[in-house]
């Protein structure tokens, strides 16, 4: 067979604008899955439209022969011409049985695959996002927390799951506030990348006290006197209200909501903080829903994280 002109060139498709529109449609679908359902429909429409145009273009460019090639009058070419004529005739443009069988086989295969794969993929992904329980944790009686003193408290988020759920919170009793005792509960999870923040200052390990929760798990309470909180991993530093003073963290330390039930302090749930003005019981906290470390809660960068997994749980 004679080499045709262009055989040595890479067989790349000619440049086209349609793939861009197709990509925009796919992006719209992905964003819509997270943000809103109507956007998904719009994305599907865009993707189908531009995908069809793209497919039409690439099929057309593949079927047209190179223009400089003159049709040689050989028997092989003649039969090819005959084929083309038959197709152009229109009489044979029916829906033959083998095509029908081919399409039904492919379609049935797709249906079966979908029926099997969808539950499996759902099982692989969904459990991480559904049924996340947030139990309150008993942190012991109030007399464990003298006024204006810090305690580093190690507790179990879920006593049944044991040591792997051990977390640390810094607790300070701010004295009597407007509606009862005021507490500051600061999470020790660095908001840079999640390492454990330490209380920088004297630490009285010999006065450590281990008490039992109502749930039966141990609570370790160590008196600490932090000048600030600092992270060992990448040098993030925070003041005693959790505001960032140095290093890579993007916001203030997370805090816990608390409630006092039957004279016992209960840790309710975590929330994120942009910054804190004031101190102790007079602190004004710019609070946001819980977010992961390294995620901005406000400002322009906050737009990077429009929706959080827990927002989808009702």
């Amino acid at each position, binding site marked *: 067979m004679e080499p045709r002109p262009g055989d040595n060139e*890479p067989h790349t498709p000619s440049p086209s604008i349609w793939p861009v529109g197709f990509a925009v449609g796919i992006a719209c679908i992905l964003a819509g899955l997270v943000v809103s359902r109507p956007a998904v429909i719009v994305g599907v429409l865009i993707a189908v439209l531009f995908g069809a145009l793209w497919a039409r273009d690439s099929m057309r460019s593949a079927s047209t022969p190179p223009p400089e090639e003159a049709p040689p009058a050989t028997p092989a070419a003649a039969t090819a011409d005959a084929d083309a004529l038959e197709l152009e005739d229109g009489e044979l443009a029916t829906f033959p049985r083998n095509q029908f069988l081919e399409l039904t086989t492919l379609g049935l295969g797709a249906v079966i695959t979908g029926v099997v794969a969808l539950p499996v993929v759902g099982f692989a992904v969904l459990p991480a996002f559904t049924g996340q329980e947030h139990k309150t944790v008993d942190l012991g009686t109030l007399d464990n927390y003298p006024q204006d003193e810090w305690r580093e408290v190690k507790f179990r988020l879920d006593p049944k799951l044991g*040591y792997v759920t051990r977390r640390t919170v810094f607790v300070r009793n701010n004295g009597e506030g407007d509606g009862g005792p005021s507490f500051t509960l600061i999470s020790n999870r660095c908001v840079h990348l999640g390492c454990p923040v330490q209380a920088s200052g004297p630490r009285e390990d010999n006065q450590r006290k281990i008490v039992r929760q109502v749930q039966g798990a141990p609570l370790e309470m160590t008196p600490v006197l932090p000048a600030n909180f600092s992270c060992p991993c990448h040098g993030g530093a925070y003041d005693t209200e959790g505001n960032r003073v140095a290093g890579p963290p993007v916001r203030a330390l997370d805090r816990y909501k608390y409630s006092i039930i039957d004279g016992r302090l209960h840790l309710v749930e975590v929330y994120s903080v942009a910054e804190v003005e004031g101190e102790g019981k007079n602190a004004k906290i710019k609070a946001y829903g819980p977010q992961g470390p390294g995620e901005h809660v406000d400002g322009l960068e906050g737009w990077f994280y429009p929706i959080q*997994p827990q927002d989808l749980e009702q």
Partner: protein
Amino acid sequence: MIETRPPRTHPPVPPPSRRKRKLTDKIIQVVMIPLDWLEERSGLVGGTKYFLFRKVPRDTNWFHTLGSATLTAFLVQAGTGVILAFYYRPGPGEAYESIRHITDDVTLGWLVRGMHKWGASVFIILLFLHMARVFIFGAYKYPRELNWVVGFLLLVLGMLQGFTGYLLPWDQTAYWATVVGINLNGTGPVMGPFLAQFLRGGDEISGTTITIFYAMHMLLLPGAIAGLILLHLYLVVRLGVSSPPWSDEAAGRSRAPLPPRGEPGLVRPRARGRFAR
């Protein structure tokens, strides 16, 4: 009884020669009979021969062996990993203890665990060296672009193997490295928090995290890597190995004369004055 066979008209075939055949001939025959049986029914022997003795450019060099070295490193990881799985128990309560048991108690456990641990670094280093060879030789160009993409996916999966495997010893280093790694993923725009929550198996690190990482490290990622390696090799065989950029043949120049055939062997001496013009 009537003899139906026609009488013989030609002299009988002489019996096979009685000469004592060499031992090597017998051995070759013993090996070849099952191989021929296999070849006749599957074509696998011919396929293997084609794969092993296919033509490659004359001026390939040692850098072209980096891909095979990477494959070997992966096979070592697969082999040692399977054996480690005999004794490893995923789970927040048992993982650390089972690793200690493998290292301290099981006969030669320290060796296999060490091979797996250090072999992981070897695998990643060889991946990068192989990639550097392909890049510097320009071997990613047409028609081999797709193989570059497959190789890149293999690199990503290899790094994911490192990430998921690092948690499994379940010590302080493993735990905090994984916390930081997951949170790094969480900082990705829009989908980051969801990716992090998927990797964690919930909104807090728990016993589920280690079993998820174990399943990915043991089943999902090695399977994907093995499949992509097959595709990678298929493309290598189909497209052929590329010459180095300084190749005379590829540049269309007359090539240096072959060195005189010396002693027959696997390796012939390198041509002298090869770069002389």
